[in-house]
């Protein structure tokens, strides 16, 4: 089914946060610290305030107090501390954007700079063991004796991979429009969750949640960067309150590299041991990553290794360095994405060591139950994905020898990697209503950040109600609707859809009671998944997939082109094939960027991400995407949710970089273990 908001989006009628027409709205612009660590001595705003059209300057000097300062990133101007370069230290509000921007450069902040450390290394003296990793996984796990298994192995690999910091870079920069009315706050915000966003903002301002309303009917992408309110939301609200007028603020693309989150860089050691038959005897994955000085974010990089392959001896660990950097955060498949790059690259290396086809190696080590927990899988179709993909891609008969296929100036190679992502679900509520006109409306405070949620929920409701989709409307993107979890963790459709189904079933029962007659006031019914979720059986619930890449590498220049990319996924029941395919392919496209070009470069001298725009932080263009496709295996899994679906927003990016890296090795014989696979790492 086509996207229900398709016409609005192609005609420019779909409004995003910054775009709501509000009488008398003013423009705020943020001023950022240009030291990575220290104290603010003075903020001199005189020149800015003297500029006609400037309405206010906010900073630590005389800023309004916030009720809750537990989240450093949101506790704007509540202290004189600078914890990273690019932190917001002041803001200016003006009648027009042009004046605000001019005034921004007139604000002079003086600092007492401190010693800083922004360099992540595998031997950083400050490495420590966090109590848990995101969101609540054990930091370390272990069974058996990995060292002994490595020593006794017939084949083994002990390799270290690195991935750089990556920035989500949704196309719509974070933006907020804030209005206060009689002490109530309304925000039009570019955010992935309106209910949780409302609660966070209310907490910061010390307001009861019902005095805050967050609208986000259309969100221009997020990929985790808009998973919670970012400083822009608080700043716009503070400015609006200060000048008693509506204020809007859009983060610039450059600023997005400072305070809207990013994926931590990682240093990952993977050890794999196998016996003569290619059965794994040990799997170990040890990760070093960074967090900020002010907030701990511990990416769950090695957790996929806990469920992927069977082996009696195993271990995973995460160690963090606290640096004077912005706090890393969620970026599409935090954990699985960089972690599976390392594991699936190492599996390719092991296959070569064992003299086995990399698909065969994975099939031989596919576990019957979750390797560490021993739980049964609700469904696991990795092997089916590998087999179906091999057939579709033309894998059979692949000559494993690297560096021997030449087409003109190109060396050609193919690679494979597995994908996985957990099935999460959070409690959610929804209502379903029918009017006397026979039109149905389901309402849930979901957000559509490009996933197709509005469309999918319409389909789910129509199916649950047993009515044509044309008679159903899904209302989302408003915190006044029944509370819902964030569009994150690939759990949106599973969580929201379950509540919608419950509400629709209740509405059908209510309709039956009315014998089908709808009163003038309509009928409304309610669904809440909390109870159903609490009663779920204990299964290991994960989606799986297999990705196949064909690359061409220019022998003279090291340029890499991905000529074919195929993903085969097993993710429960696919509710809307059209938008699902786009989700998978979109993730794979971002994975291609990770493999070949994306990299946020830390400026070690000045302490920020140096390449902070789209000319320097390269994301794939349409010219980088050649033959790309995603297909799926229908799974019938009764242990998931009423729709039988698994999440699909993130799994597409998991494994792509490994498949491409493995293909580059097959093409050239070169194993690049540091992403991205830039030309300077292949040329010469």
């Amino acid at each position: 089914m086509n996207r229900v908001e398709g016409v609005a989006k192609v005609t420019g009628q779909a409004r995003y946060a910054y775009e709501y027409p509000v009488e008398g709205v003013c423009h705020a612009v943020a001023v950022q610290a240009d030291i990575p660590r220290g104290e603010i001595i003075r903020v001199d705003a005189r020149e800015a305030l003297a500029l006609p059209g400037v309405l206010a300057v906010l900073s630590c000097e005389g800023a309004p107090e916030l009720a809750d300062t537990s989240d450093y990133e949101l506790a704007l101007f509540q202290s004189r501390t600078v914890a990273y370069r690019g932190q917001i230290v002041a803001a200016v509000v003006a009648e027009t954007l042009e004046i605000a921007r001019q005034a921004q450069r007139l604000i002079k902040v003086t600092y007492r700079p401190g010693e800083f450390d922004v360099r992540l290394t595998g031997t950083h003296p400050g490495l420590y063991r966090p109590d848990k990793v995101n969101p609540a996984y054990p930091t370390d796990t272990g069974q058996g004796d990995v060292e002994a298994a490595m020593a006794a192995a017939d084949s083994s690999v002990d390799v270290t991979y690195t991935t750089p910091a990556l920035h989500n870079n949704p196309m719509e920069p974070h933006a907020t429009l804030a209005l206060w009315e009689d002490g109530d706050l309304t925000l039009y915000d570019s955010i992935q969750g309106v209910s949780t966003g409302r609660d966070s903002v209310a907490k910061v301002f010390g307001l009861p949640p019902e005095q805050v309303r967050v609208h986000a009917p259309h969100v221009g992408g997020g990929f985790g960067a808009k998973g919670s309110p970012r400083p822009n939301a608080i700043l716009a609200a503070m400015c609006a309150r200060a000048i008693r007028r509506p204020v809007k603020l859009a983060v610039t693309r450059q600023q997005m590299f400072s305070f809207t989150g990013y994926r931590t860089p990682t240093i990952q050691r993977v050890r794999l041991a196998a016996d003569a038959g290619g059965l794994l005897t040990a799997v170990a994955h040890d990760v070093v990553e960074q967090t900020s000085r002010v907030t701990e974010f511990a990416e769950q990089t090695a957790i996929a290794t806990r469920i992927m392959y069977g082996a009696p001896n195993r271990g995973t660990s995460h160690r963090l360095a606290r640096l004077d950097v912005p706090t890393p955060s969620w970026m599409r498949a935090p954990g699985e994405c960089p972690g599976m790059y390392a594991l699936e690259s190492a599996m390719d290396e092991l296959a070569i060591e064992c003299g086995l086809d990399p698909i065969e190696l994975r099939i031989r080590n596919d576990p019957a139950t979750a390797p560490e927990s021993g739980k049964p899988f609700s469904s696991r179709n990795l092997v089916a994905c590998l087999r179906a993909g091999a057939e579709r891609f033309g894998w059979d008969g692949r000559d494993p020898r690297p560096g021997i296929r030449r087409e003109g100036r190109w060396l050609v190679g193919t690679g494979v990697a597995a994908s996985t992502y957990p099935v999460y679900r959070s409690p959610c509520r929804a209502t379903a209503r029918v009017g006397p006109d026979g039109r149905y409306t389901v309402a849930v405070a979901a957000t559509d950040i490009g996933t197709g949620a509005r469309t999918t929920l319409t389909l789910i409701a129509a199916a649950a109600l047993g009515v044509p989709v044309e008679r159903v409307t899904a209302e989302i993107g408003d915190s006044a609707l029944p509370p819902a979890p964030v569009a994150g963790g690939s759990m949106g459709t599973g969580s929201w859809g379950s509540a919608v189904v419950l509400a629709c079933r209740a509405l059908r029962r209510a309709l039956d009671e009315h014998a089908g007659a709808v009163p003038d006031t309509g009928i409304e019914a309610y669904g809440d998944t909390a109870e159903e979720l609490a009663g779920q059986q204990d299964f290991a619930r994960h989606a799986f997939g297999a990705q196949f890449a064909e690359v061409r590498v220019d022998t003279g220049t090291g340029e890499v082109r991905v000529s074919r990319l195929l993903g085969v996924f097993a993710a429960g029941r696919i509710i809307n094939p059209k938008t699902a395919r786009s989700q998978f392919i979109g993730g794979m496209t971002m994975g291609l960027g990770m493999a070949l070009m994306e990299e946020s470069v830390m400026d070690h001298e000045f302490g920020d991400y140096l390449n902070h725009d789209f000319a320097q932080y390269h994301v794939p263009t349409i010219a980088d995407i050649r033959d790309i496709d995603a297909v799926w295996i229908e799974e019938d899994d009764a242990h998931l949710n009423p729709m039988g679906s698994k999440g699909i927003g993130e799994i597409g990016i998991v494994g792509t970089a490994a498949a491409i890296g493995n293909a580059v090795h097959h093409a050239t014989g070169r194993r690049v273990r540091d992403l991205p696979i830039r030309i300077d790492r292949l040329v010469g």
Partner: protein
Amino acid sequence: MRPFVYRRATDAQGAVATFEAAPHAMYLGGGTNLVDLMRLGVASPDLLVDVTGLPYDQVEETPGGGLRIGAAVRNSDLAADAAVRRSYPVLSQALLAGASGQLRNLATVGGNLLQRTRCPYFQDVSKPCNKRDPGSGCPAREGEHHNLAIFGHSASCVATHPSDMAVAMAALGAVVHVEGPGGPRRIGMPGLHRLPGDTPERDTVLEPGELIVAVELPALPYAARSRYRKVRERASFAFAVVAVAAALDVADGVVRDCRVALGGVAHVPWRAELLETTLRGAPATRESFVVAAEAEFAQARPLRDNAYKVPLARNVIVGVLEELL
């Protein structure tokens, strides 16, 4: 952005006179780089003299068999010009290798020549940069420079010139026509751009108030077979890591003449004169191309992290010359 006065000029003399009346005037072409730099705070003119309305929007054949390209011609028009495609394909290819369709529709020939470096430090006003703020230092030299210069850099600047078009023009020996307070003059390329030395704030030899009005391409019949090849970090829409503009004149298996210029390697479009000298009169073979390229790169001085550009550029040169055989 600082406030500025906007004036639209209708002729070159008027433009120059208007320019001279303000202390920090700049000429505005398509604005694709200048507006970008103004928004970053890198450029802060108090007067913009819009020169896109000047009568320099034509591409005309010259009596000597060359082309005269008005400075206000848009990049997309120049790339699509039939005479350019026929006689100087390297120029059309260079233009099309640069930027995006949207940017080429705005960008002018004059503005393209005067683009400023995309060195990350130059573009960030919160950091030192000798080019932007003379005497403040060059963090790129010891910092992030994996895509910066390998030729002709100095202690004060290791930036590269970003234009593709200028590389092709340098190879073709284009002549830049200038009007200015001191009257008209002509500057032969690659002489328009200068190496950074101690004064990296000056990208070109233009004096304040001087305005590019045209670029003349001299007749070069063998340039009808010429090529531009650009290597970058994604398939399209990125600045060059290395680019090569080349034309080759071969008779009886011997190189009679050749033109080779490089982009992405220096503060200027780098005309490979040593390579050209070495190649003239040599057999037109891969071996000769390799020897000539090696001669050129003997003078390269790569920085800590950009030595890969030497084999890369050499391979691209050899590949392009082979294609021109």
